[in-house]
């Protein structure tokens, strides 16, 4: 239970970061926070609800792998953005709309 509350808090912080930051790197950091919160959830549930199963841990491990892959693509994208726009401020990356 405590873990779940902690993870909800961490997730909220992540949401806040994602919504308020303008720098793409900082937004990505917020997303990483959210993913970590999810992992906490998985591990805690795994330990308390299914003590003789490790599915939750496996899930968390996969989440970590995926997060790493995502971060890899994400930072590549950021570098591409920087080359094209000379900044990584997502509010200014706004050619297309409406």
């Amino acid at each position: 239970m405590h873990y779940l509350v902690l993870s909800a808090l961490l997730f909220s912080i992540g949401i806040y970061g994602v919504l308020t930051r303008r720098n793409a790197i900082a937004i990505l950091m917020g997303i990483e926070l959210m993913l970590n919160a999810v992992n906490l959830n998985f591990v805690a549930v795994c330990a308390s609800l299914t003590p003789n199963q490790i599915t939750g841990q496996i899930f968390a491990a996969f989440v970590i792998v995926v997060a790493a892959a995502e971060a890899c693509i994400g930072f590549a994208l950021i570098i591409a953005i920087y080359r094209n726009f000379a900044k990584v401020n997502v509010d200014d990356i706004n050619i297309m709309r409406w």
Partner: protein
Amino acid sequence: MGISPIVPLLIIVLPFVSFIICAVFGHKLRERAALVALSLVGLSSLLCLLTFGIVALSAQPQKGTIIQGIWMCIQIGNGKSSFTIPLGYIVDPLTSVMLFVVGFIGWWIMLYSVGYMRGDARYHRYFAYMSLFMASMLGLVLANNFVMLYICWELVGLCSYLLIGFWYEREPAMRACKKAFIVTRLGDTGFALGIFLIATITGSVLFYSIGNLKGVFTSIHDGSVKQNGLFALASALLFLGAIGKSAQFPLHVWLPDAMEGPTPVSALIHAATMVAAGVYMVARCYVLFDEHIVGKLMLLGNSIAISPGELVAHIGCFTAFMAATIALTQNDIKRILAYSTISQLGYMMMGLGLGAYSAGTFHLMTHAFFKALLFLCAGSVIHAMHTNEIFEMGGLKRAMPVTFATYLVGMGALAGIPPLSGFWSKDEILAHAFMHNKFLWAMGEVTAFLTALYMTRQLCVVFLGEQRRRDIHPHESPPVMLLPLFVLSFGAALSGLVGTPWMNLYGKFVTYGEAHVEGHPSSGFVMLISLCASITGVLFGYRLYGARRISNHFEDPLRLILGATYSFLEAKWHLDWYEGTRIRHAFFAIVNGCRGFDLGFVDGFINLVGWVVAYVFAYLHRLFDLYVVDGLVNGVALLTGFVGNVLRLIQTGLVRHYILFVLLGFAVLIAFSMWRVILLAHP
């Protein structure tokens, strides 16, 4: 004696008819609109008094006699997943007292308005709104189920919004009505959630069982609905609604600003009746605030436990104290009264929260009388002086003797001078507090002292001394305004006598269940302390303000005494989180959506409500005159524009907004489907 189902129906329908007439034919009736409203509402008020009389005289009022009936049932869905909403009325002692208060005081205030509003350009519309208000307030009181309660609750709020912004040309009035609307909406959201929750748990929205329809309170009370932790949550959510409507901390911020409306409105809505709706609701749902029945409210995984009653009592007590201190430093005659209203509502909440069911509602009744009286007097003063600043008045005792005399009665009642009404009801609450929680009691006594102090301050500054503005020649108000003052001052003076410790008629009449028959816990000690507090307050106030000459450039002596504290109080404890803070902007930002501030969704919504009511109803006849084709063309143009705006709203091209959209959509979907879950969970 029984009551024919047609009587409660008429009580609600008559003012509503008056509203329709005044709204549709108002421009033709002009001044006669008042006549229509007064007669129809008067009829309804008479029926209210009749109902009160019947209930009061019936055989066993103290057994909590409940007369109720159903006009019609609304079925949502069919078969197993259907949900019934029985629309009907309920008349028990509490309701009958409320009917009496609302009907009686409401009518006199409407009479007063005839004089006060004379010459206003939107005279008829004023009476239309007032009628609508009476209809919905009476409906709120008579409601026998949560749905009807909620609808009337919102209608009352709408009327309040319309009447605060009645002089919408004035910028402050416009701001104040928006503020009231938004702030109370925060509470109403909780209220709605609470109702949903209750409907989920019990599968019903009816208050008390009738026939084979299960009632919420009945089934909770007799234990046929299993106790679970959600009840306490539900009552806390319901109380959130009361916090908004009854202006409790922290949603109290709208009430002082609501004084921008016409003074009779302040008297009726923001002092006597509407703000009491929250108190009434808590009293009505009292089962849900009973710790023995609903248990405690668990927060954050059971780490904090508080019973709903304690929550109510503490918030009430804090509100009472805070508002009283703020009232000390205000200079606007109506604002002082507004803060005192907040403070007194806090008393009522405190009483209810401590289990003093009858004391809380008793104070509601007496307060309605003297606060209406005080506001009407203030209106009379404003009418004469054309200003709200108390330091610009002074010496009105000679010019307006009748107003002064009645004001004195009201002030005495509020300050708690025996044998005026306020003393008895406040004493009863304090006696209960003394029994249950010494700390709350002490705070209550301090507040009583402060109450006496600020009322004396106001009285002295306004009526005593010399007249400070020489350019105005005040005169007494016309008889049509004085008559209500007289009547109400009788109420304010005498209504307390039905609940004295020695002859507690009221306490026997309005009780909560049989198990909780409570006497007036007459404690001589408490009464003595209360008396001392009031008297000290009055004397202290008179010494500060009455004895010395108050000049035009007068430094408030309290400022010298309190020093920095005074500025703190004058700034309303810096608690007006709505004005000039980020929160207000946040609120606007959220509803304005992704486009930020330039497309006012709130404005749009409020304007929409305004249009629907003010435009569609009041100018219905004009719409008839227009060609239907014209309307259609305009409508299509409007729709296209709307779509265009939404389009711009959503596709901003900003990733941040896209992400927000994902989260927002997720939240909206959850909110939407919760309602369906409720229907499914309890077929």
